[in-house]
Every structure is written in C-alpha cells, then in structure tokens.
C-alpha cells in the first residue's frame, strides 16, 4: 500500500472499481464495516463525503469539497482503518452511534464516570463481539453513546482520548 499525503485531504473512492490505489480504503468497504459491526445503515451518511488525511485516518464531511483539499480540518475525524482492527473515533460515535443496533454496551452511571475518566470497566458477562464496542449510558431519560471501548477478557477498556477525558 502506498502512502497518503498527511498535508491534505484526499477523497475516499466510492468502491474498489474506482480506486486509483487498491491499497487505500474505499467508501463501500467503510459502510459495510459499520453495517456489519454496529448495524448502522449507510443511509446515515447519504449527505456526507469521506476523506483521508494521512495513512488510514478518515474524516467525515457534510457536503462536498475539492479533491484534494489542503486545509486544517474537513468535517470530523471519523475512524482509523490503518491497522487490522478498524476503530471509530469517540466523536464520530457520539455523533452517529445512536443509529447502532448491535455491539452497544450499556454502562451504569458509575461505570460511565469511570469510562469517561479513561478507566476500564469490569464486564465478565458479555454476549456480543470482542473488540471495539460503542459504550452507551442513560442521561436525561435517553440512551446516548459516550465513546468507544475495547472489549477483551471480561473488561471494557476506555479509548477516550486524554484530551477528552473528564473526571465527573
């Protein structure tokens, strides 16, 4: 796989047939991953375009832009697809995670506070997949996604970035 220029945003190709570089991620694969992993329908992003800035670092942007676009930010950091296990960003899950129908793990108020502080949460019983899950909590009577956890061996590890962590 060749590199991607970290100084600009390149549009993600719609599918494998339109790729200039077969090593790069494409939109169809990204949407399939969200559908398979979380049950999120691709229609959620019908008004959004996907962009790559730096290897495997994807952004989601409402609307269209020049390809390439040399700016500081284009919408929101969406997910990381560089390593074997793709990982959505905390902010993308907070924005789009309410559409998820599976691999969502509900946290109590106390567990939510731990998770947001960057701490792991014990969860010996879990029927879903291992790997990256959407952590959710109840606030003001609503179920709300709070971030991404990595579920391994009976615990949910918080992946909330340091700059986003809070002590409630």
């Amino acid at each position, binding site marked *: 796989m060749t590199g991607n220029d970290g100084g600009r945003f390149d549009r993600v190709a719609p599918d494998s047939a339109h790729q200039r570089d077969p090593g790069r991620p494409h939109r169809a694969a990204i949407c399939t991953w969200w559908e398979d992993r979380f049950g999120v329908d691709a229609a959620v992003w019908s008004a959004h375009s996907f962009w790559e800035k730096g290897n495997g670092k994807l952004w989601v942007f409402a*609307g269209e832009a020049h390809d390439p676009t040399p700016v500081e930010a284009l919408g929101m950091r969406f997910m990381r697809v560089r390593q074997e296990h793709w990982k959505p960003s905390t*902010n993308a899950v907070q924005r789009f995670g309410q559409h998820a129908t599976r691999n969502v793990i509900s946290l109590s108020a106390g567990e939510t506070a731990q998770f947001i502080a960057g701490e792991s949460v014990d969860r010996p019983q879990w029927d879903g997949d291992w790997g990256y899950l959407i952590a959710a909590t109840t606030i*003001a009577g609503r179920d709300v996604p709070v971030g991404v956890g990595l579920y391994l061996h009976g615990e949910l590890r918080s992946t909330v970035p340091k700059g986003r962590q809070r002590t*409630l």
Partner: protein
Amino acid sequence: MGLVDRYAPMTDDPDAFRTACSRPLPTTVRVNGLKTTPTAATAALADAGVTTTPSAWSQSVLRLDTESAGGTLPYYLGWIHGQEEVSCLPAHILGPQPGETVVDLAAAPGGKATQLSDLMDDTGTVIANDVNLGRLSALRHNSERLGVTNLVVTHQDGRHFSLKPIGSARTVDRVLVDAPCSCEGTLRKSPHIVADWDPLGHRGLQPLQIDLLGRAIELTRPGGVVVYATCTFAPEENEAVVDAVLHSHPCTVEPVALPAGLTAAPGLQQYDTMRFADSLTETVRIYPHQNDTGGFYLARLRVDR
C-alpha cells in the same frame, strides 16, 4: 481617565454602567442543537447538580449557578458549550440558512463558528478560519466535541483570505467578522482589562479590523450579508471601522434586529472629533448593565454590487 470613566458618559445610565462593570459576569452555556435540546440539557445539568435559568431571549442560552460546567456529563457529550451570552448573538444576527456557504474569518476558538453550524443544521459549509495556529487546535477540538461535520478549518491571514484551497468557484452567502479587539467588554470576567487599560490601545487594532471587514465584503456575493462584531466599547474599533468600510466597499448598513428580551443602545453618530454616517445608528452597542452581560458591538451589512 480609566476605562469605565471613558465609556460611562456614553451610556443612558452611567451609575448603573459603573456598578455592572464591577460585578462578576454570570456563567452561561449555549445548548448544542446538533446533539440535544434545551429541555434535555437542562435536565442533564440538573442531574449533575447544576441549576440553570434560560436567558431572557433564548431557550438555548442558559445561565448557570456555578462557575463552570466543564466537569459534567452534558459538557463531555458536547450538549453544551461555554459561551458568553452576548457572544451567542453574532451568529443569530448573521442569520445563516441551511445549505449556505458561510465564512467565519477570525473563528478560533470556535464558539460562534460551531453555533453557525448548529443554526444551519450541520448542512452547507462553514469555513472557520484563523491566523493563529495554536488557537485553531482549540477550534478543532470544540467542533468535534460538539459533533459538527460541515465545518472546514483553514489557517490563513484573514485580511488576504482566499477560497482557493476549498474551491474558488464557491459562492459565499455570509461572512462573520468577530474581530480581534481590545476586549474592553470582557472586563467583568477579566479584571486585568481595567487594570492594564491603555487609553490609546484601541488605535493599534483599527487597520487590521478595517482590512478584515473589507475582505469580508469582497468575499461575499452581491446581496449577501456580513456581520461585524467586537467585544469592546471603543468607537475607534466599532463605528469608525464600519464607517471606513462603507466608504471603501459596496455595502450598506442594515438594522440589527435583536431578539425580543434584549436591550441595547444605538451605534454612535459621533465621538470626540469623529463623525460617522447616519446609518451607524442602525448598529448596536450592548452595555453590561442593560442585560447583565459583557459589553458588545454588532453591525449588519448588506453587500451591494
């Protein structure tokens, strides 16, 4: 002469102005409509032990009984953003519509730019520019926490702002110029503004402010709207800037239609030896005693061509 002495005679009630300037500023947050509603945010803040009161003019602007809500779950979730009550006004006065292209020329740290996205329901494009790279990282952080996806962040000198990186063919419908200023109106939260006040300090920024507003007019399509805002009282940074651009660029002043519940004073027609166009009375000055806020200035311009 001190800061408060210079401006008290300008107001309808100098004593009330002086008293208000010495009181601490209420803490306010803006509710982010992209992630929640005022009702849910109010309930979530109450669960976190924070009592709120809606502002007189907007259900989305809440006054808090605490100094900060930064350590609460609704803040973490991007339901609220710390934003002074008068700082919530420029986006409303600009009046962006869904699907439009809007530029915020001096956008960091992003409270107003993300509010534009909110008012546009995260459709169209908000181009949030700032010359200060360090402050841009705060803008990016805020934008992402608030769940905004229609915002493009650019790093340019606003005086020479170019659409080229984003696409020169794009038509700009509206521009916000929340200009760098001497920040006299923030004296209630930053007492050093009074202590360090330099009677001639406001003169240095005027050329930059005129250039930024001029560039905003040039960027905007005919019939489009530009809002010029500062958080300062100095006529040199307010009416004098708008007056200069009225003479150099094709634009006219439109009345600032403040939301019901807010009190303001008209812009000045003269100060000291300065004389301004009659239409400057359609701009507004907000003094701290009028609505128990910080100080602010707002002008709305329509681009002619």
